[in-house]
């Protein structure tokens, strides 16, 4: 069952709300890199990067990025794939956020985190709009606790109070551990 986020993009207010929620969470976390996973991570990542003052780094399928790249293979639900990142896009010690529209098995996000860590970055969190819980993707993210939320409607309206409540509970986990924030 394909989770299609393009309907979210056709509603400017809902799209803005989605971005604003991420920005509120990350703006004071001293994040200098927002890495977006091809291709739908390129829709949500750049606006977040712009708003929090970070650079946007695309993580792409093979042979799309010119010049020298890091390359990370990973398993999909149905086969395997590969993600690449420019060498030099990220400096050692930079704090990074990974953005994608959806977490399924977690394979893509793991590959994304591996790429950033190979370049010496510290990955704070993975931010996704949608989760498919049955595929247990969060468990692949080093088994760390994850943040979740509920939706009011199929237009991905998020309960802000729930986000704030969960954020406060998991605040202790945020400093040195991997986890993912999933909006639905």
């Amino acid at each position, binding site marked *: 069952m394909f989770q*299609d986020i393009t309907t979210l993009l056709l509603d*400017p207010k809902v*799209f803005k709300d989605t971005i604003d929620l991420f920005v509120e969470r990350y703006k004071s976390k001293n994040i200098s890199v927002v890495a977006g996973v091809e291709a739908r991570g390129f829709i949500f990542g*750049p606006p977040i990067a712009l708003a929090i003052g970070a650079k946007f780094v695309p993580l792409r399928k093979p042979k799309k990025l010119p*010049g020298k790249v890091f390359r990370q293979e990973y398993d999909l639900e149905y086969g395997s794939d590969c993600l690449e990142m*420019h060498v030099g896009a990220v400096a050692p010690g930079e704090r990074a956020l990974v953005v994608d529209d959806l977490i399924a098995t977690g394979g893509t996000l793991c590959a994304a985190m591996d790429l950033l860590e190979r370049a010496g970055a510290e990955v704070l969190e993975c931010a996704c709009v949608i989760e498919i819980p049955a595929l247990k993707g969060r468990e692949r993210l080093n088994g760390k606790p994850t943040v979740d939320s509920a939706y009011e409607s199929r237009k991905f309206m998020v309960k802000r109070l729930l986000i704030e409540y969960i954020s406060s509970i998991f605040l202790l986990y945020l400093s040195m551990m991997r986890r993912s924030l999933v909006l639905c």
Partner: protein
Amino acid sequence: MFAAENGLRGDPRLKGISEAIRVVPNFPKPGIMFQDITAVVSNHKVFKDIVDIFVDRYRDRASLWSGSKRIYICSAIALAIGAKFIPLRKPGKLPGEVISELYELEYGNDCLEMHLGAVQRGRRALVIDDIVATGGTLSAAIRLLERAGAEVVECACVIGLRGRVISVAKRKFILELLN
């Protein structure tokens, strides 16, 4: 039209944008000088300047819908001007019913798709892409939107390549002209 000839001559932001564009020779094929836009979005100030320039131009044009093939910059612009964002994608990427348009590239052929029903008839649209070479991709994007009944107001691009014959009939707004 080029930004420098349209009120932005001497704008220091254009210089920063130009300097941020990385040219990679012989990619994806020998003989091609690849204009790498990723260097632009990895520079926060330059990325913001690009979005600001486009937002200044399009903010007051109500009910604009924006469609884009290369989407590093498009969603940020759509968000800032309050427009609906319609991704235009390679075949097989968009779920559900689509309309398709074949076109010629500088170096080969390709196909662009858009969701059926994404655009309402009579709506005004803006097409955004990072680079225009021959205009083939932009022409395909325009045809897709017009087949759906939209009126394409303008095509906005970061980079235009000097000396190329740009076949796109619609008004163009290009930030940077490169060799």
